[in-house]
């Protein structure tokens, strides 16, 4: 990829992530929320944004050789964002979060969030022991988990009536789906099934 095309991609990525954050920061809902609730909500948006960064990194679109190492670090950042998201919501309303974690919440989006969270945690554990797994198990496991993470996270984010603006949220969700599907196709993981 030429450096000018890469520069355009970087700018597009920055816009795709900055616009939802700016729109959410303008939400009237924030004025009726405690700081810890606001931080929890924005940690969720950051997590969704990292789901756009991850596939672009691993396919080498954003940069050359250090991309894979950074992919690991942004993966750790995703785990951290989820922990902040859930912990902040827990402090805001413990019984609602307990209901979600026990899969008995009345809200339809929360089960998707819980599934995505466990898929991310499972991926982190897989990544920690990947040397012992072998390439085939690792790549198939990580790819399957990534499909679950991307799909469940997008459904979760889309169904939530929160601080995110509908247009910027929808656009970010579409980009996350597209980037995930594109990376999966590019990496041709299904070869490992043979």
């Amino acid at each position, binding site marked *: 990829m030429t450096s000018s095309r890469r520069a355009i991609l970087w700018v597009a990525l920055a816009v795709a992530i900055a616009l939802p954050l700016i729109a959410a920061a303008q939400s009237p809902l924030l004025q*009726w*929320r405690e700081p810890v609730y606001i931080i929890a909500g924005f940690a969720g948006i950051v997590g969704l944004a990292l789901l756009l960064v991850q596939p672009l990194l691993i396919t080498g679109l954003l940069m050359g050789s250090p991309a894979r190492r950074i992919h690991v670090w942004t993966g750790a950042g995703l785990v951290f964002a989820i922990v902040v998201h859930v912990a902040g919501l827990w402090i805001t*309303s413990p019984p609602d979060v307990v209901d979600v974690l026990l899969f008995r*919440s*009345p809200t339809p989006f929360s089960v998707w969030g819980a599934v995505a969270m466990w898929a991310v945690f499972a991926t982190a554990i897989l990544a920690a022991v990947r040397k012992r797994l072998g390439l085939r198990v690792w790549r198939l496991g990580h790819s399957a988990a990534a499909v679950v993470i991307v799909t469940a996270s997008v459904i979760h984010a889309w169904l939530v*009536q929160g601080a995110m603006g509908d247009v910027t949220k929808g656009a970010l969700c579409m980009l996350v789906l597209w980037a995930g599907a594109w990376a999966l196709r590019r990496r041709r993981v299904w070869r490992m099934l043979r």
Partner: protein
Amino acid sequence: MTTPNPTRRTVVSTAGAAFLIGASGLTRPARAKSLEPTPTMRGGANNYLPGAPIVDRIGGGGFWTTGTVRRAGDGAPLAGRRIQVWAHTTEGHERDARSHGAVLTDANGVFRIEMPQIVPAFGQPHGHLAFDADYDDGDFETVFLRPVLARASDTSLHAEFVLRPL
């Protein structure tokens, strides 16, 4: 006249269908004028603070929560029943005591309480309502409701309690 000569497939499918209809309760007779009790909703009791005071209005008001309280079976209105209401509003979180208040039903089993505007929290604009047997004569079962506003811009919420006698 032809004699029915069912195949094994016909017998099995007919018996299966009969079993399904029976097991699914579709043959239950329609009971005229029998009102089913309202079940407690999932998450309905979340952030409940028992014993909120009976008030004319929670905070500054501007939003109306209304409803009825009736007896299961005959649907008779229940007067003087205490309903507690709480929500995440423009004036506080669900866990804040100032977001809670209670009201009594009138002679027609109707209650209405003014409160601050409900705003979306935890992904949905919703309210909480409780009929708590511990704060009543104890002749009806406790029920917690968690109705969701159709639109976040709605300025009222309606809930109906049908209580099961103990």
